[in-house]
């Protein structure tokens, strides 16, 4: 079961502004889904290793060789706000 305060906490962690009505709806929906998936809490998983991946177990590494970086205009092209050199963001310190 997820209550209102948990929904609000998670929404804050996930940076999702949610309306007051949405809090209750989400609390109900998430609780319903969790009720279902909690089936797995009945399984005995003692001694079972977790799998983060299914097929390959260890990976390979990349040689330290430079590639061509993007031209700045291309890097900034899709940004909602720039000063021509960098990505503009609202001030981190203020607001919520």
């Amino acid at each position, binding site marked *: 079961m*997820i209550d209102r305060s*948990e*929904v609000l906490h*998670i*929404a804050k*962690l*996930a*940076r*999702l*502004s*949610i309306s007051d009505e949405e809090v209750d709806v*989400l609390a109900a*929906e*998430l609780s*319903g*889904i*969790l009720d*279902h*998936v*909690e*089936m*797995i*809490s009945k*399984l005995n*998983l003692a001694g*079972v*290793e*977790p*799998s*983060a*991946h*299914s*097929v*390959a177990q260890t*990976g*390979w590494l*990349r040689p330290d060789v430079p590639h061509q970086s*993007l031209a700045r205009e*291309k*890097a900034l*092209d*899709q*940004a*909602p*706000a720039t000063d021509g050199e960098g*990505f503009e*963001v*609202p*001030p*981190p*310190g*203020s*607001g*919520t």
Partner: protein
Amino acid sequence: MSTDSTKLSVTETVAAVASGLLSKAELHAAWLDRAGLDDLNALSWVSDSPELVHGDGPLGGVPLGVKDLFCTEGVPSQSGSKILEGYLPPYTATVVEALAQAGAPLIAKTHQDEFAMGSSNENCAFGPVLNPWDRGRVPGGSSGGSAAAVAAGLVPWALGTDTGGSIRQPAALCGVVGLKPTYGSVSRYGMIAFASSLDQAGPITRTVADAGLLYSQMTGKDPRDATSVEHPDSVEPVVPMDLTGVRLGVPEELTGEGVEPGVREAFEATLDLARSLGATVAPCPLPHAPHALSAYYLIAPAECSSNLARLDGVRFGLRVDPDEGLDGMYGATRAAGFGPEVRRRIMLGTYALSSGYYDAYYGRAQRVRTLISQDFDSAFEDFDAIVTPTSPSVAFELGSKTADPLSMYLSDFCTVPMSLAGIPAISIPNGLSDGLPVGFQIAGPAFSENRILGIAAALEDGLKFDGSPAWIA
């Protein structure tokens, strides 16, 4: 040959191009005409360039439909989301680039569920895709646009992606072939991620041979995707396998309760066909398969909650700024940009990873995944392939499941276990139920694509499925 050339399978078309019966220009023009017939909201973008550059690769210049979530340089790549509306990436996904090099240039992008989350295509910010067999029904999802476009003859073949069934289930609901390859055998670089440990690109085609042809040019280790691996076998042109002595396992856990009668009938009929072709069919236990959906609905949301954190209104995409500082901008942008299902899964995944819950949810789910892989490992000691219905139901009516997320999640019941185990599985159309297509799933061990394609082709020959009712005239 003109527009009738579009009725050929891709394999036949490639042969016609090779023998000079068909020019690449004619081919392209014919398919541009076909793409123009879209009345299903299947296509999100169609090339306006009359002459696409395509090499002399083995794919003969047969143009390709590509799911919206593949990044294509300068071409909208929106992953079905308002937060990426009109987004033009500065680069192209490895597999799209490789296929263009191999002679399958991009002709259209296809609509999908937002960030590949959904089984009906109703979670698309740009409207639902309609099923060409019945425009009141869903095409399945999340690669619903690709499946519908191939079924309706808007594109000759298409790319989809599959995380828990997103290629196979819409292929089943639209009466086409869909292959989810072995995890890692196709590069994910440039695919807008849903759940990184599960996502895999694959072909959606009208024939099994076409699926094998497209897959053969997709697979390979990509230096830009650290989870990609070289396929140990070369992927051969598909030939129907002699099914004599081939052992097919039927897991009771995935074929019992919940499967619609019409789907079950078609499934049984296909098993009979397999027997008649010499295969042996026997029950095959997958004891943990009933838990796959639960594990999946923890793992996939957890990964997506992190993968979608980059949608933050800074470097690309939508920004909503209520002038309440950085966090205010993040919250407002993400609330406005993500649809309800995406928000729901981000919340669920954030919760499953959060302090105090990790072990109970994500940690346990990863252990269930181990058990499911082990189930398959032991099953493949006794069986050459495992077969199930692809989807427990045929295409359902638009809006019929949107109110209840759980009932929608059950659409992936038969496809999710293979995703968790990373093994390949193909869906082929195996008949109709009440005039709507049914899908038959064949799964094999990791890197057994040649085998399951061969089995699928043998059954395809026997089934003689007629997809023409979906064809837009």
